[in-house]
């Protein structure tokens, strides 16, 4: 089944909001119960459609944050964009009990299957952490022993999603090795000044290329292009780099 492109028909489904959790001051995780949910693979996304009473509608894609499981319930994490059209509604208006139109799960390439045994390198830029968190959660909920590293690039510590969960994972240490890069404000006593990821930072924080890891890079388009370029320059096989671009503002708003 791994790597097959053949899908069940991707149709619109109705989901009900069952819980809300703020990740940061601008981002919120929404848990949605979907009675006919067919299951998903970590890394896939859903399209969410909002419809106004006069029929105007807007559709946006959101990565599924939750690991595959047998529950008929998924989580998405939405970051509010200042001039967004859908994200302000999802992060500020939506209430428990509201229904949402969803299409999915969608995606056949930017996915991780539990039967992949090679080392995995995850690199997140801002809200790009969402599908990578689904991949981590999927790994930890399975019997997989694949070696995982996550490099999470953020503007500042307060912008991190899943803080407590990632901290618990990094304390455990051996299953997922976690590193951070801060681009504007660092935590106190951070050994490195705030800056964009560069070749030196990458070489200290990712699997060496001779291990032939599969890399998953997700975030704003410019972040993904920049990091993918650095990975190739560091000797990673282009065919083993999987990317998902969220557009110029970090999300297709």
């Amino acid at each position: 089944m791994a790597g097959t492109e053949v899908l069940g028909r991707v149709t619109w489904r109705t989901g009900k909001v069952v819980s809300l959790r703020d990740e940061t001051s601008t981002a919120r995780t929404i848990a949605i119960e979907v009675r006919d949910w067919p299951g998903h693979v970590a890394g896939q996304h859903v399209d969410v459609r909002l419809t106004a009473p006069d029929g105007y509608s807007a559709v946006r894609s959101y990565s599924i944050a939750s690991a595959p499981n047998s529950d008929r319930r998924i989580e998405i994490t939405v970051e509010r964009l200042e001039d967004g059209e859908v994200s302000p509604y999802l992060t500020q208006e939506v209430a428990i009990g509201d229904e949402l139109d969803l299409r999915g799960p969608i995606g056949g390439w930017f996915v991780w299957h539990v039967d992949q045994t090679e080392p995995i390198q995850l690199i997140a830029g801002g809200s790009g952490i969402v599908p990578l968190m689904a991949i981590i959660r999927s790994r930890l909920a399975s019997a997989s022993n694949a070696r995982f590293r996550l490099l999470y690039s953020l503007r500042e510590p307060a912008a991190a999603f899943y803080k407590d969960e990632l901290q618990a994972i990094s304390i455990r240490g051996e299953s997922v090795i976690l590193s951070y890069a801060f681009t504007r404000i660092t935590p106190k006593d951070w050994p490195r000044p705030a800056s964009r990821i560069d070749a030196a930072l990458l070489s200290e924080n990712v699997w060496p290329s001779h291990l032939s890891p599969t890399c998953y890079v997700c975030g704003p388009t410019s972040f993904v292009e920049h990091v993918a370029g650095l990975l190739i320059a560091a000797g990673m096989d282009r065919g083993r780099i999987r990317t998902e671009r969220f557009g110029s503002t970090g999300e297709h708003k």
Partner: protein
Amino acid sequence: MNANMSYLDGNAAGGELSKIFNLDLTAAEGQCANCGATRRFADAHLYVDCPGLIARCASCDHVLLRLVNTGKRAFLDLRGMAFLKLST
């Protein structure tokens, strides 16, 4: 090579393309009919809503695929790809 980073990638076309094919094309490898580069469709530069959907070769920017969905019908132009290789 492209200073304007407002494109998405082939992953974001999954929902729209799934309306037409019973397949997810994002993992398929496609060869650009213009420059010959063979890459995963997920890596294509995707421009949406313009007012259709356009996937461009990440190597040379040539149009790989265009899709217009009028609601009643879909128009699909695949001339920009010499082939698409899918595993079934």
